[in-house]
């Protein structure tokens, strides 16, 4: 045990200065902490978050100097809280890039609230902005926005009357299912099947067969990347011939990469944006920079987190040097990001637009089929 | 067989085995000539099995030396000793329960496939009861068949030293006779046979020499003819 003491001490004393200080200007650097899940079942989304944040933080606007450090929040609230506590104590950040994992956000929000440090996230879990902690800023439309877009597109554009909903037994899946059900009800449509799917499940044919047996006329997916690709592929293989409107996982280029273009024919997905689909030169520049830096394709989570961190940096450039000042700036300003324009609805929801992207069967880059702007009536 | 004279014998020189500080065996000095059966008698716990373990290598020798012919094998690993002439049929037989008769013999036989098949056939010829059970798994054999298999497994590599530990345990009298006949046959074929037994009468009937162990020590080492009917021998045995 005695030998462990130095280890223990070392553990608590690893200096925050380990991160590279990227002094870009003469001004005293501000710190930002990037706390996202880069291991575990949300590692894919968390890595996109990290990459988006890093891309923004590496090139701060003129006159702003920023240091940052990345830490993993893994899969439990406990680890996220520890990481946040460490960041607050050791890094004194003006803002935190916070995990996409809603459960972790629920645990972190009260602590960040007490410290007055804004949490900038792309988590879709509706509840994180409903608890009165005015430090949570969400740069991705909540489920209350994207699920509305998904349901409306399925019902109003594709004419689904008897959809089957397949959702993951994770926070992402369950929250999405809840909002899908709500919107479908408002649209007067009742799902013929709602099937919960554990992430450890390999074969989705049983669920697809149940959908067929229930007489479904379309599939609404709320699954993570791998299972989404599997559902699309197995539905194609079974020859179900049903239209598919998937959750945001489907728009991720990593998901499309798992499928052949013909399997993607007619598959649509909701998302906040689709960086690889945009012709806008600013978005294209982002996409190229992302590819060059990370050798992978950016998705809407990366872009949302990028926009969020850019807005934080804009606040700093505008003279906000304290967490409180940055928080106030985020809460009070409108910001023109790459994916959309962001403005708080008063509770920290910054993104209010959703898009539906679809694949036409010729490639793995989707086209934006429909934009749902200001779904929640904000702006 | 004619090669008897060229075979290696077994020699133990002041061998001691200790476990957790207690001396279980020895010091024991003993030699077994090729072509002879030496019967090891003594009560349970007298050290008969420990003696065999020491020779096989499954018990560490704390002191003393063991020779196989001209080679000292005291430090050899177990499998090395097995491959160079020590065959062992342990107390309780310890067959591999999931293996068939043929498989059991195969894993213990040396040489290439043809050579092994030849040896297995020879062994099944020598133990006809096993021939009809060739493809039966070991745990389904009767006690006598299991014992025959254990002996066959011990000798299929044609070892120069054969150790038989309580081979007659739990067997019907007629089967016991077969086991002892087999032990004698091994010696007649040139092996040095060490036979630990409780069935004194049958052991004496096939042994050239008899040794008595008591509390880990050798208390008597006589030719069989001298021992049989000798009251001192009887005393040593009953008192052991």
């Amino acid at each position: 045990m005695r030998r462990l003491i130095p280890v223990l001490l070392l553990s608590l004393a690893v200096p925050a200065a380990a991160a590279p200080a990227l002094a870009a200007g003469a001004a005293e650097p501000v710190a930002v902490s990037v706390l996202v899940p880069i291991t575990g079942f949300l590692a894919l989304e968390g890595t996109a978050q990290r990459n988006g944040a890093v891309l923004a933080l590496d090139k701060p606007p003129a006159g702003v100097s920023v240091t940052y450090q990345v830490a993993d929040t893994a899969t439990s609230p406990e680890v996220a809280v520890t990481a946040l506590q460490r960041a607050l104590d050791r890094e004194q950040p003006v803002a935190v890039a916070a995990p996409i994992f809603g459960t972790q956000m629920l645990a972190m929000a009260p602590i960040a609230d007490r410290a007055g440090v804004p949490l900038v996230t792309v988590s879709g879990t509706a509840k994180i902005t409903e608890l009165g902690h005015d430090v949570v800023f969400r740069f991705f439309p909540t489920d209350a926005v994207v699920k509305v877009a998904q349901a409306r597109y399925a019902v109003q554009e594709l004419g689904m009357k008897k959809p089957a909903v397949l959702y993951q037994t994770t926070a992402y899946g369950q929250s999405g299912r809840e909002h899908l059900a709500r919107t479908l009800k408002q649209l007067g449509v009742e799902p013929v099947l709602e099937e919960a799917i554990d992430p450890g499940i390999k074969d989705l044919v049983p669920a697809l067969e149940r959908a067929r047996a229930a007489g479904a006329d379309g599939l609404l997916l709320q699954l993570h990347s791998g299972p989404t690709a599997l559902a699309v592929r197995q539905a194609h293989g079974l020859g179900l011939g049903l239209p598919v409107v998937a959750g945001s996982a489907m728009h991720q280029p990593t998901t499309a990469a798992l499928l052949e273009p013909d399997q993607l024919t007619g598959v649509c997905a909701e998302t906040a944006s689709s960086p690889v689909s945009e012709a806008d030169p600013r978005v294209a520049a982002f996409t190229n920079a992302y590819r060059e830096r990370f050798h992978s394709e950016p998705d809407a989570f990366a872009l949302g987190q990028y926009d969020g961190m850019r807005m934080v940096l804009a606040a700093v450039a505008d003279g906000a040097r304290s967490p409180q000042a940055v928080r106030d700036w985020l809460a009070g300003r409108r910001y023109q990001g790459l994916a959309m324009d962001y403005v708080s609805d008063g509770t920290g929801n910054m993104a209010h637009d959703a898009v539906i992207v679809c694949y036409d069967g010729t490639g793995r880059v989707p086209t934006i089929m429909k934009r749902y702007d200001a779904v929640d009536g904000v702006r | 067989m004619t090669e008897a004279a060229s075979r290696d014998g077994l020699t133990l020189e002041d061998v001691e085995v200790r476990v957790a500080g207690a001396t279980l065996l020895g010091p024991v000095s003993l030699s077994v000539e090729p072509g002879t059966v030496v019967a090891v008698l003594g009560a349970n716990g007298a050290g008969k099995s420990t003696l065999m373990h020491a020779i096989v290598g499954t018990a560490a020798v704390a002191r003393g030396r063991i020779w196989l012919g001209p080679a000292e094998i005291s430090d050899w690993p177990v499998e090395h000793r097995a491959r160079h002439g020590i065959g062992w049929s342990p107390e309780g037989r310890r067959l591999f329960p999931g293996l068939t008769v043929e498989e059991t013999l195969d894993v213990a036989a040396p040489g290439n496939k043809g050579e092994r098949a030849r040896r297995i056939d020879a062994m099944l010829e020598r133990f006809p009861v096993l021939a009809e059970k060739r493809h039966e798994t070991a745990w389904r054999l009767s006690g006598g068949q299991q014992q025959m298999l254990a002996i066959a497994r011990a000798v299929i590599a044609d070892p120069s030293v054969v150790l038989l530990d309580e081979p007659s345990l739990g067997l019907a009298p007629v089967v016991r006779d077969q086991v002892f006949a087999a032990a004698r046959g091994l010696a007649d074929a040139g092996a040095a046979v060490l036979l630990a037994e409780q069935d004194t009468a049958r052991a004496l009937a096939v042994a050239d020499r008899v040794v008595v162990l008591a509390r880990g020590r050798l208390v008597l080492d006589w030719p069989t003819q001298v021992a049989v009917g000798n009251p001192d021998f009887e005393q040593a045995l009953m008192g052991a």
Partner: protein
Amino acid sequence: MTGPDRRDLVYLAAAAAGLGGVVALGDTYALRVATLVGIYAIAAIGYQLVFGRLGLLSLAQGALFGIGAYTSALLTLSLGLPAPLGIVAAVVAPAAVGAAVALPIARLESHYVALATLGLAQLALLAATNLELTGGANGLYGVPPLAVGPVEIVGGWPMLTLVWTLVGLCLLASRAMLAGGRAARFATLRDAPHAALTLGLNPVPARLVLFAAAGALGGLAGGLQVHGIGVVSPSVTGFEVMVTILAIAVVGGRGSGPGAVAGAALLIPLPEVLRFLEGSYLAAYGVVLLAAIVLMPRGLDGWLRDRFPRRPPAVPAAASAPARRRGKALAVDGLRKRFGGVTALDGVSFAVSAGTVVGLIGANGSGKTTVLNLISGLETPDAGQIRLGGVPLAERPAHHRTALGLGRGFQHPEFPEGLFVLEAAAVAARDRSVALAALERVGLAGRAAEPVAALGAAELRRLDLARTLATEPGAVILDEPAAGLTADERSALSALLRRLADEGLAVLVVDHGMDFLLPLADRIVCLDAGRVLAAGTPEAVRRDPAVVAAYLGQGAAA
């Protein structure tokens, strides 16, 4: 105890150094990590009771942790119960679950214990993830912090103090649970189950108590956790928590409470130390964990044990406790037993009067040990009756027979790891002076303060007899007590058995060596192939032609 264990001093020094380190760092983060260490330490102290002391690889401790967390969260959130009451419920509910599963699970063999507990844990995880009540995968949030009156304990020093006070209390509670010779009894139940049964130790209450205690501590840790961070999600019932607790227990040293604390202090901060490696830190954690287990296969506590051996127990000054037991006659009548197709015993009857020694002889496989197993209750006869002092035994469980006055010695006695001679002898004794008296009778009193591991095979046999005598039996049955003894030892043993008989005990001795039994026994019973071949005085049996034939063979008899 003769003063504090030096190992405890090492632990205390380490704890003081750890506290110093935390004070020196002083920030909320350091306090939080230290608090987390304490929370996992509590769960692991509990786990040590089942995993270490009962020797069962339970995979449910993580689930019990989760049940505690959810119980307290639900009660405080939906019923508005004050958090301290929630914590109480977080202790009670998992304790009840632990007790409820203790018996059905503990009768399973090792890997099946692991699977059954894993199955329960998976069901708990499934429920937590999919029930509305538990908030689904998102879990429950906004769980109020612990509060004393208006003062909230949200983190920092108050929470640290609370958690580590509880760690201390849990260590004391676990120590109390293992005091008074219970540690030795649990160890005997774990490592020497047959001996335990014949010494009258009942495994059922031990399992109930230890499983319940493990559940209580697991739940307490879960409750503290949930009120500390304000949310609970299914990840608390997940396999990762279980693996963490298991790793802490093994790295800390199986069975040791302080080891669990040390293991938590090593493993919980480790990812934090490695944080600078970003994504690779968990792989690095794996490397360190591997190194730790390879360097210390028996854990930190085992490693310390090698350097600071446990102090021997205090040996009572006087060992003059009078035996309380009166001699009782033992009789078996018509015992039959078959194993599969083999008839082991075929109608065996004989009696051992109080105050006499009866020798039971026969070739290997003749059924001697089976007779002893039936008398002591390790096996059940197919037919026949066993009476001790007139009381029928055959229907009673093995551990009841000790209380009725039966003692049994084994040919190859089992002893648990790490005990001292006196502790091993006292495992089923009324008190230690009785055990010391028993040691004196077998000539081991002088070695009472030595570790059992230091004894030789012959001495272990005597120790086995001593722990049997320490139960103050009215009849003893011994399996080859003289095997492997020297001539001097045999005559001492012979004298001892004679003295026991003279004190009124019924003594039944199985042996091979005629020279041992002939002068000692009042009567000899000779078994052959499961039947009584001959019975009578030693001289008569020795001259019996059937016995001579069986022993020396026809050739020698002729």
